[in-house]
C-alpha cells in the first residue's frame, strides 16, 4: 500500500482522534494521579492494636511520668501522664522526642571496640562475650598490678540502684573514685551541709510561694525538674511574684514580673546587698534568726576574741551604693527588692544559673541561701527544704579483700570530701589529675549517663586528659562525644527499654521513688549496665563476686525495692505523702544545732573568671534553652528543628550582644565576627539583642556537637570550648560562670 502525503496526514489525525476517543488516555491520567497519591517512597505506617505503656522519663533528673502510645510493638508517641505529681500531663520538648533517639541512627547497636585512633569513629563490632571478656581482663589486670584505686567512674547521678551498683563495684574493686557530674546540686548540697549540717538535696515548694527571687535560675528553662517548675510558674500567675536577676533577658526573665539586669557573676554580692537592706530595715524573721540561727550577731569566741557576726559583716561590707557599683543594680532597686522580698509572706530565693548544669561558688550558694534564712522560709510552706536522700537501698557493706582495702586507703583522685567545705564530687579536678598523673595516674574510666567531653568546660583540656587514660569505657546507649572517644562501648538499654529506679526528681520537696519500665523490648543488642557490672564482678571473682550476689540486674532491682516493687509497677511513683520537713528545732545538724550564718562569713569572696580585661574587654557567658539539650544526650532532630534562626543559621551560631556594645565594636546584626577567649577563637554571627547587659556576650549551650547524626553534628559551637574551668578555692567546684572575651569584625 502506498501512503501518500494526504493519506499520511489523514492517518495521523485519525489515529490521534482515535486515541482520544478510547478510554486509554483518561485511564492513564487517572492512574498517574493515583500513583502520585501512593508514591512508593512515601511511607504508609502499619496499623494494628493500640495500647499505652506507662513509664518514667529519665532523660533528665526531672522524673516525669510518661505514657507511651504503641501500635503492636512499635512505640509511636510519648505523652505525659495526666495527674502525675511531677508533670500532670505536660511533657518537655526533649521527652517528646525520645522515640527519635530510640529508633534513630545515633544508637549504639551492639558492643563496640575502638579500632582506629581515639575519636576517629572507627569501630570493631564485637559480641557481648568478647566485650565482657575485654573489660574483665583489663580491670583484672589493673587490680592485679595493685592499681585498683586508679579506676574511676563518672555517672550522671549518684542516686538509684545503677549508680549505687557502680559505687559498690568500685568499692569492692578497691577504688573510692565514684564521681557524679557537676551541677547546681553540688552547690546546694554543700550549702546545706555547711549551713544546716544536713546531707540532703534541695527541694522547693514553689507552688505555694508568693515571691520567687531567682538569681539567674531558669525556672522555665529547665532548672530543677523542668516540667514541675513550668507548672509552678504557671500556678504562680496572679498569685505570686517572680523576680529574675540575670544579665540577660532569658525566657524566665521575660515571663517574670520583674527583670533585674545584673553584671554577670555578681549575684552573691547582690544577695548580700539585699541582706543588708533587710537587716537595716529590720525586716528579717526575728523568730528564726534569734532562736534557730547561729552567727548572726557578733560574738566572743572561747579565746575571748571578738568574732564578727553575719549582721555586722553585711552591714559593714554591703552598702547599697557599693553593691550597685559591682552589680550594676541601682540602690533604689536593691532597696525596693529587699523590702518586697522580706515583706512577702512566702518568699524564696533560688540559685543556679540557667538550667543549673554548672555549680556556683559556695560563697554564692550560701549568700543566696542566707536570704532564705533571713526570711525564715526554710522547711516551711512555699520555701526551700533539705530533702533527705532516698533510703531504700540497704545493701550490706561490700566485702573488701586486701587489694580493695589497700585501694580504698588511697586518697580520692579529685580530693573531694577532704575538708568540710569541699564538695562531694569534683569532676573538674579529675581533668587536672589525669593530665598531670597526680596524685596518681588514672588507668581506667567508666562513664555512665554522662558526657564529660561535651559538658565540661575547657573541652580541649578534658580531651587531653582523656588521652592520658589508657582505658575508657562508655555505657552510653547512643553515640555521644564521650562514647565516641571511648575504647569500649558497652551500650546500656535506652530508657524506654529498661527498668530503672529514679529517686526524688530534682527540686521536688517531698521524697519519692519512681520506676521506669520497659515500654518496648530492646531494639538492639544492648545490655543493662547493672548486668555488665554483675558479670564483670563474677568474672574477676573473689570479693567482687560476693559483692554482686544477684543473678542479674532485674533481680537486684526487684530485691532492692522489696515491697515497693509491686506498688511501683502499679503506680509508677511512690511519694512519701506524710513527709514533713523537720521543724526548725530539729532541722539543723550543725555543731550549734542551729542554722549557721557564720559558715558564710568564714569564707571568701566571689570567684572571678579567666582572662584579663585589657586583652579581653567583654565577658562571654553561656545560656540555656529548653530547645537545646546540653547534657549526656543532645538534641534529636525534632528539637533542633525548633531552634530559632537567631541562634543557628545553617551551621553558624549566633551570639547575643547589646546594641551599644555592637556599635562600640562596629558589629552589625547578623554579620560575622570572631569571638576570642583565652581558651580559643572561632567565627560566630552577631545577634544584636536589646535584652542583654552591655559588655556581655551570650552564647547558647547545646550546640557544636561532634558526635550524633547529620541533624546535630557540626552545627554551631560548643561554648565549653571557649570557657575554661575556674576552681572555687573553697569548695573545689568549677564555678566558672563565663570568661573574658573579645569580639571583632570577621
Amino acid at each position: 500500500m502506498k501512503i501518500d502525503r494526504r493519506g499520511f496526514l489523514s492517518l495521523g489525525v485519525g489515529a490521534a482522534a482515535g486515541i482520544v476517543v478510547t478510554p486509554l488516555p483518561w485511564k492513564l491520567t487517572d492512574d498517574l494521579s493515583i500513583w502520585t497519591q501512593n508514591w512508593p517512597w512515601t511511607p504508609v505506617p502499619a496499623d494494628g492494636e493500640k495500647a499505652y505503656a506507662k513509664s518514667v522519663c529519665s532523660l533528665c533528673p526531672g522524673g516525669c511520668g510518661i505514657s507511651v502510645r504503641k501500635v503492636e510493638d512499635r512505640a509511636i508517641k510519648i505523652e505525659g501522664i495526666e495527674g502525675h505529681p511531677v508533670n500532670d500531663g505536660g511533657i518537655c520538648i526533649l521527652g517528646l522526642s525520645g522515640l527519635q533517639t530510640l529508633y534513630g541512627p545515633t544508637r549504639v547497636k551492639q558492643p563496640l571496640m575502638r579500632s582506629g585512633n581515639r575519636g576517629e569513629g572507627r569501630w570493631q563490632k564485637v559480641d557481648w562475650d568478647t566485650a565482657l571478656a575485654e573489660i574483665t581482663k583489663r580491670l583484672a589486670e589493673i587490680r592485679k598490678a595493685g592499681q585498683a584505686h586508679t579506676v574511676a567512674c563518672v555517672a550522671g547521678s549518684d542516686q538509684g540502684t545503677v549508680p549505687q551498683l557502680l559505687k559498690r563495684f568500685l568499692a569492692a574493686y578497691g577504688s573510692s573514685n565514684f564521681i557524679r557530674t557537676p551541677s547546681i546540686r553540688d552547690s546546694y548540697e554543700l550549702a546545706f551541709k555547711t549551713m544546716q549540717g544536713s546531707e540532703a538535696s534541695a527541694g522547693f515548694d514553689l507552688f505555694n510561694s508568693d515571691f520567687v527571687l531567682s538569681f539567674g535560675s531558669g525556672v522555665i528553662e529547665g532548672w530543677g525538674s523542668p516540667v514541675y517548675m513550668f507548672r509552678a510558674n504557671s500556678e504562680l500567675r496572679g498569685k505570686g511574684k517572680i523576680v529574675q536577676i540575670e544579665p540577660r533577658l532569658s525566657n524566665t526573665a521575660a515571663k517574670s514580673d520583674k527583670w533585674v539586669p545584673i553584671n554577670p557573676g555578681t549575684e552573691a554580692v547582690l544577695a548580700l546587698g539585699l541582706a543588708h537592706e533587710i537587716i537595716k530595715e529590720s525586716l528579717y524573721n526575728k523568730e528564726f534568726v534569734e532562736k534557730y540561727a547561729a552567727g548572726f550577731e557578733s560574738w566572743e569566741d572561747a579565746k575571748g576574741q571578738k568574732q564578727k557576726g553575719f549582721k555586722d559583716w553585711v552591714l559593714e561590707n554591703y552598702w547599697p551604693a557599693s553593691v550597685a557599683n559591682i552589680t550594676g543594680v541601682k540602690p533604689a532597686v536593691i532597696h525596693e527588692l529587699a523590702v518586697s522580698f522580706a515583706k512577702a509572706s512566702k518568699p524564696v530565693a533560688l540559685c543556679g544559673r540557667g538550667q543549673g548544669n554548672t555549680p556556683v561558688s559556695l560563697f554564692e550558694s550560701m549568700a543566696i541561701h542566707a536570704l532564705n534564712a533571713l526570711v525564715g522560709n526554710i522547711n516551711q510552706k512555699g520555701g526551700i527544704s533539705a530533702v533527705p536522700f532516698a533510703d531504700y537501698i540497704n545493701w550490706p557493706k561490700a566485702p573488701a579483700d586486701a587489694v580493695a582495702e589497700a585501694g580504698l586507703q588511697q586518697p580520692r583522685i579529685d580530693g573531694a570530701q577532704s575538708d568540710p567545705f569541699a564538695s562531694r564530687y569534683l569532676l573538674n579536678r579529675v581533668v587536672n589529675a589525669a593530665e598531670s598523673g597526680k596524685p596518681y595516674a588514672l588507668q581506667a574510666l567508666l562513664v555512665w549517663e554522662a558526657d564529660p567531653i561535651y559538658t565540661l568546660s575547657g573541652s580541649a583540656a578534658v580531651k587531653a586528659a582523656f588521652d592520658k587514660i589508657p582505658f575508657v569505657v562508655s555505657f552510653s546507649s547512643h553515640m555521644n562525644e564521650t562514647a565516641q572517644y571511648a575504647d569500649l562501648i558497652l551500650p546500656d538499654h535506652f530508657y524506654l527499654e529498661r527498668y530503672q529506679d529514679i529517686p526524688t526528681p530534682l527540686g521536688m520537696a517531698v521524697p519519692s521513688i519512681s520506676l521506669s519500665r520497659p515500654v518496648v523490648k530492646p531494639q538492639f543488642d544492648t545490655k543493662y549496665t547493672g548486668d555488665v557490672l554483675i558479670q564483670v564482678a563474677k568474672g574477676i571473682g573473689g570479693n567482687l563476686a560476693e559483692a554482686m550476689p544477684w543473678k542479674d540486674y532485674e533481680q537486684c532491682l526487684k530485691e532492692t525495692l522489696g515491697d515497693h516493687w509491686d506498688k511501683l509497677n502499679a503506680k509508677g511513683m511512690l511519694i512519701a505523702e506524710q513527709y514533713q520537713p523537720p521543724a526548725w528545732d530539729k532541722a539543723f545538724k550543725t555543731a550549734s544545732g542551729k542554722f549557721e550564718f557564720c559558715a558564710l562569713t568564714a569564707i571568701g569572696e566571689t570567684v572571678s573568671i579567666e582572662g584579663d580585661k585589657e586583652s579581653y574587654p567583654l565577658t562571654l557567658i553561656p545560656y540555656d534553652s529548653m530547645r537545646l539539650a546540653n547534657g549526656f544526650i543532645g538534641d534529636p532532630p525534632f528539637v533542633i528543628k525548633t531552634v530559632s534562626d537567631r541562634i543557628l543559621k545553617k551551621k553558624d551560631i549566633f551570639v547575643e550582644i547589646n546594641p551599644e556594645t555592637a556599635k562600640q565594636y562596629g558589629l552589625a546584626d547578623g554579620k560575622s565576627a570572631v569571638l576570642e577567649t583565652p581558651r580559643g577563637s572561632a567565627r560566630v554571627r552577631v545577634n544584636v539583642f536589646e535584652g542583654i547587659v552591655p559588655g556581655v556576650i551570650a552564647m547558647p549551650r547545646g550546640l557544636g556537637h561532634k558526635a550524633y547524626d547529620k541533624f546535630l553534628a557540626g552545627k554551631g559551637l560548643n561554648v565549653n570550648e571557649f570557657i575554661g574551668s575556674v576552681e572555687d578555692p573553697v569548695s573545689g567546684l568549677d564555678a566558672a560562670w563565663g570568661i573574658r572575651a573579645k569580639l571583632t569584625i570577621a
Partner: protein
Amino acid sequence: MKNEQGHHKTGKKYGMVIDLDKCTGCGACMVACMAENNVPFKEDETNKLDNIMWMRVYRMSNGKPFPDADICYIPRPCMHCEAKHGHSPCVSVCPATATDYSHETGIVSQIYTRCFGCRYCMAACPYHARYFNWWDPVWPEGMKNYLSPDVSPRMRGVVEKCSFCFHRYQLAKDKALTAGHREIEESAYQTACTQACPAGAITFGDLDNPKHAVYKLKHDPRAFRLLERLGTNPKVYYVTDREWVRWMADNYQDQEQKAKG
C-alpha cells in the same frame, strides 16, 4: 464547601485559648505536634521559610531598648478561621476543594491526596499556618518505626497544616458512639499540643459550649486574637496581661493606641 446553614446550630466550634503569660516558649507544643502528625524534618531546618511546623512558636519583641526590652512567645497553630462567608481565607480560594471548612467541628481540613500544590491557600493565609512539602519526606534509618498510622505522611508537592488533631476528634467520636454518649466529653478530645504543654498554657474545647473551659476564657477582657481586624474571625484566642502584646497583635498603630486608650 456546601452551604449547610442548617448545620450551624448543631455544629461545634472547636478552638483554643492560649495564655501567653504562662507560655514559656519552650517549644514542646511544636514537637508534640510534629510527633503526633508524622511531620518530616530535614538536615538543615534553619531556614524557617521551608520548615514544616504546624504549630509554630513566634517571638514578639516590644522593640524597646535595654533594659526595657521585653519579649513574648506566641504559639501559632492554624487559626481555623470562620470569616464572613462561614469559612477561612484559604478554603474559598482552593481550586480543587482540597481544603474544607467543617460546620460540624469548625475545623479547616486539608485533603493531601486532593491537593495538587498550587499554594494559593498559602498566599491567602496571613498567619503562615500552611506549609508546602518542598521535599519528599525522608526518615532516617529506623525512624519510620515511630510513625503513627493515624495520620498519613504527606507526599512531596502538597500543602499541609494543623488539623486541630482531627484524627483525635474522630477517635473520640467513635469512642463516644460505642459508649452510647451523644456528646464528646471535653477531655476526650484534646489536641496534642494542648496535652503536651508543660506550662498548661493551652486550653482547647468547644468555644460555643458554656461548659467548656475555653468558653469562659475567651470572654476574658485580656483575651484577643491575632490580626482580628482582617476579618478572619480566628478560633484561636490569646490571653495576656501585657498590653503591648495585645496592641501589637492586631497591628494597632501608635496613634490608634492613643485614641483608644
